[in-house]
Structure formats: C-alpha cells, structure tokens
C-alpha cells in the first residue's frame, strides 16, 4: 500500500537466448560485433528470403516453461506482428499470438522473508529487432544496425500479481537467476539481454482495479523499481487531484527519473496479427517435452526456500548461495553429509571463499575446495581441535591445493590444547604471575579477564582452546 492505495504490477520480460545462431537464420548470435556484420538476406528481410526456426530456441523456451511451472503447448504456431519501424526489416516481427509455447505457470519468490507466488500468463518465442543509432552529428538522420535482428527472445508475461516495486524486483531477480541456472541467457543487463515492460495501476482497497499504464524502455532492475515508484506516485497524484488515469504507453527515462507519454489508447497500434505463412505448425514430441523437463535442475528459488525453511539460513545467506549454481552444489554436497549445521558452512562460503573468488576472479570449480575437505575443516573447528584462526590458515591452503586436512593440522602446528589438566596448569602459572590483575578482577574490573585469558593463550603459544581456557580461568577466579 502506498498512501492508502493498493498497487498492481504486471511485467513483460524479454530475455535474449544465448543460442549459437539466430532464431530464423544461421547468422551468428553475438553481441558487440561490427555494425551490420552479422546479417544475411533472411534477417535483413530481403525479397524472397525465408525464415527457418532454430530448434534450440524451442528447447530453451520449453525449459523456461518447465522452470516456471507452465503448461507446454507442444503444438503451436507463430504469427506476424505488423508495424513499420526502421529497426524491423520485414515490417513485421515473427512472434506468437494466440497460442504461445508455454502458458499458465507461476514462480515462487521471497520478498522480505515472505513467500509470494507470482502467476506467469505465458512464455512465447519471437525475434529481436535491430538497433537505431542517434547522434547530433548525423545531420537529422538516424543510423540502422541490423546485427540484433533475429536474435532469439522469449517473452515472459506475468499476471498482475505484484503489489510493490520490491516484489517486482524480487520477481525479476528470480527470473534472472533461473535463466542463469538453465544456462539459456547471458543475463548481461548492460547488453540488454534482459529487458522489461512494466504495467502499473493503483486503486483504493475494495475498489475495482485502476486504469493501467504500460511503461517501456526499462533496462535494469533498479530502473524498474524507480520507474514503478515514479509511476505509482504519478497515478496517485492524478487521482488525489480528482483526475483520471489515462490508458497509455509511457517511456521511462532513467536519467531524468521520469516517464513521458508515448501514445494514448486512441492511437494504439493495430498490429494485424495473423499466422506466419512461411512457417508450419511447431509440433514437439511428448517425449522431447519430458526429456527437457528432466534436464531442469533444482532451481534457485526452490533452493532458496529450502535453505531458509529447512536449514535455517537467513534470506540473505540463502539467496547468496542459491543464486550461484556452483556454490549451491558445493553447499548441498556439504549438507548431504548431515554432520554439521548449515550456518557453519555458510560462514565459510559467504566469508573467506567469496572473498577469494572475488580477489582471484576464479570460479568455484577453479578451486580445490569440495564438500569433503570443507566438511573436514568445519568438523575440526566444531570439535575444537583447531581454532577459527587456525581454520583460516588451513582454508587458505586447501582452496588452492588438494591436501589432507588432518595432515595440515600437524604440519602447520595448529592443534589446540583441549586437555583440561594441561590448561589448568597453564592457568595456575599465569594467575600466580599476575596477582594484580587477579585482584583487579575481583574488585570489579571485569576487563582484566580478557588480559588473563590472553596471557594464557600466549603461554600456550596460541594452542590453547580459547573457550575452554576462559572457562577454567573463570572457575579459578571464583
């Protein structure tokens, strides 16, 4: 609720698929190459050129459909969406209108610790358009680069199920991590590999839904948040001033932080959709649909919920681990041993390990860390065999080399003294040598305890189990 209004948000998300070739021709599907170098008669819309559908595009879209719990329409078709624009060479986009490849799904997301289910209306396949280049130097002209024409896209249309910009952001981040898990999209936001259109309306609770506006040109998740917040406030302001929200398409300008009207409902475009006659019906075997389903791993949003619910991790910890497929696999491997609490692993993975990966630029699989050596290390600390500080020394070694953890304890001389009689002997010695501190403590200067424990540790050359040492000193001080 914002200022007494309920907010309703629906998203249309476009994700570029990372196939080898384009959707309807065998041009290379790659970003950032020289202008108009990845084109051919088909994607340039030359007279007489015909499209042929890339099978990977269908597979990837079906995978995403499974991941978002959709019904897969294994018999479907493609349609033409007709409109004129210089970045659209054929003056129609091949898309899917009536029957999308996937429909009626949902995705579970976590927002501020709360679980939310967002409906997915449909996922369909379509081709991307080219790019227009603008500059004041172009003498009142724009330049057209067609390299992006025919890059395969899936459009994921959500139900209007989101109630805040935070939910929209969580939804988008969940989609992104799923796309990454499936390995079907590069998810490079700066290259526009995920883009979205946002539909927003507001209404008073108990009243019918408000008129929605559609916002285009939202190029990052944070821009989505800013755009939604802006639009919500704009609509509320109109209503509060007794006005009416117009049904229109608006364009988000993230630099200025405002949206401007592109076109109203009256000049809404008439796309004249009709079945693409250059392509026949798409028919995917039942077996193929099932095989693709079996290829889907446990997805990050499911993992996230499991980590929070079953293992008691915080949302932040769980999200961090779940978002990286490799990290999650390592974590799950550790937990499968059923020995030590999740928190103990999470501390290592989110601490020293991430720091190491960030510093070295390595990926999880580039390191020598695995569920076995990490569990062994965690075990040594849990049992008090070594200290945390000692653990860090071992960690630094096993991350780079396959070395026996137990042997390292000896080699680095990290074994803690946990034998109480040995520790008591040290305590007696230290207390006798520090009478002043003892009396300070007894007179209420409690920080003297820390000094005494420190002296004991020093006397043990750092090998005393600090927890036990403290207990013994306290006992002896009465």
């Amino acid at each position, binding site marked *: 609720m914002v200022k007494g209004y309920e907010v309703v948000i629906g998203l249309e998300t476009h994700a570029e698929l990372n196939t080898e070739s384009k959707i309807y021709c065998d041009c290379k599907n790659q970003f950032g190459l020289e202008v108009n170098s990845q084109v*051919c008669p088909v994607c340039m819309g030359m007279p007489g050129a015909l499209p042929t559908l890339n099978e990977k595009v269908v597979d990837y879209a079906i995978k995403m459909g499974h991941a978002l719990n959709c019904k897969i329409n294994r018999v479907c078709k493609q349609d033409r969406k007709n409109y004129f624009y*210089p970045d659209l060479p054929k003056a129609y986009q091949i898309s899917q209108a009536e029957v999308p490849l996937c429909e009626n799904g949902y995705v579970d997301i976590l927002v501020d610790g709360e679980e939310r289910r967002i409906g997915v209306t449909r996922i369909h396949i379509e081709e991307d358009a080219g790019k227009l280049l603008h500059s004041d130097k172009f003498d009142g*002209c724009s*330049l057209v680069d067609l390299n992006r024409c025919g890059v395969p896209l899936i459009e994921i249309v959500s139900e209007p199920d989101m109630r805040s910009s935070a939910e929209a952001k969580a939804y988008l981040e969940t989609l992104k991590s799923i796309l990454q898990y499936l390995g079907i999209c590069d998810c490079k936001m700066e290259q526009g590999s995920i883009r979205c259109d946002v539909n927003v309306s507001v209404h008073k609770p108990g009243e019918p839904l408000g008129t929605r506006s559609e916002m285009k040109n939202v190029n990052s998740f944070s821009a989505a948040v800013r755009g939604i917040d802006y639009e919500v406030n704009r609509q509320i302001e109109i209503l509060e001033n007794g006005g009416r929200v117009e049904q229109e398409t608006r364009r988000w300008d993230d630099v200025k932080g405002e949206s401007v009207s592109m076109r109203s409902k009256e000049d809404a475009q008439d796309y004249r959709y009709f079945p693409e006659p250059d*392509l026949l*019906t798409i028919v995917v075997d039942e077996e193929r649909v099932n095989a693709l389903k079996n290829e889907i791993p446990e997805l990050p949003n499911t993992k996230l919920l499991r980590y929070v619910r079953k293992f008691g991790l915080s949302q932040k910890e769980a999200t961090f681990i779940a978002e990286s497929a490799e990290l999650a696999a390592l974590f799950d491997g550790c937990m499968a041993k059923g020995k030590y609490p999740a928190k103990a692993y999470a501390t290592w993975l989110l601490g020293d390990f991430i720091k190491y990966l960030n510093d070295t630029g390595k990926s999880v699989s580039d390191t020598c860390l695995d569920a076995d050596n990490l569990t062994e290390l965690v075990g040594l600390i849990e049992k008090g065999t070594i200290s945390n500080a000692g653990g860090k020394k071992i960690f630094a070694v096993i991350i780079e080399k396959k070395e026996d953890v137990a042997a390292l304890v000896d080699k680095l001389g990290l074994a803690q003294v946990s034998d109480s009689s040995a520790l008591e002997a040290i305590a007696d010695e230290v207390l006798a040598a520090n009478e002043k501190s003892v009396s300070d403590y007894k007179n209420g200067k409690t920080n003297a305890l820390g000094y005494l424990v420190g002296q004991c540790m020093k006397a043990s050359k750092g090998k005393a189990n600090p927890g036990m040492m403290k207990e013994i000193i306290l006992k002896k001080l009465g």
Partner: protein
Amino acid sequence: MNIDIRHIAKLARLRIEDDQFEKFEKEMQNIVDMVENLPDIDEELALDENDPMTLREDCAVTDKYTRQELMANAPQVKAGCLVVPKTVE
C-alpha cells in the same frame, strides 16, 4: 461494409491522393462487397499437427556475405549503417 480508406491507408503506409480518392474508394468498396458474401462456419481454426515443421539445427555460419554485398542496394549508407530520417527516441 463501409471501409475507412484513410485509416487503412495509414496502417499500410500508403497515401491516396485526393484526386484519386473517390475512384479508389469505389473500387475498394466493390472488392470488399465481392469478398463479403462468405457463409458463416461454426468451427475453430485448429492447428494441423499432421504437417509439422522440421526445425533447423543451431549452427552459425559466418562470412556468407560481405556487408558491402548486402548493403549494395540500399538507397543511403553511412559508416556501415543504413540511413533513415531521424526517429524520435
């Protein structure tokens, strides 16, 4: 059925000059009258599962054409790009 010639022309990005308009409108009207007499059929257009499409293997082929070849027919080219009147962005 009366058809809004100007609206349709706008959608099709065609311009019918004023002196041609009446003639064109009449011809269009005759054509639409001709095709209008179709009987109602109470059926849905089902998809034809028996005529499935063979899909293309995902393989990229590079250097099939040079940019120069593909742009040779373009009315205006600048810096390897096609040139159009400025679009409002």
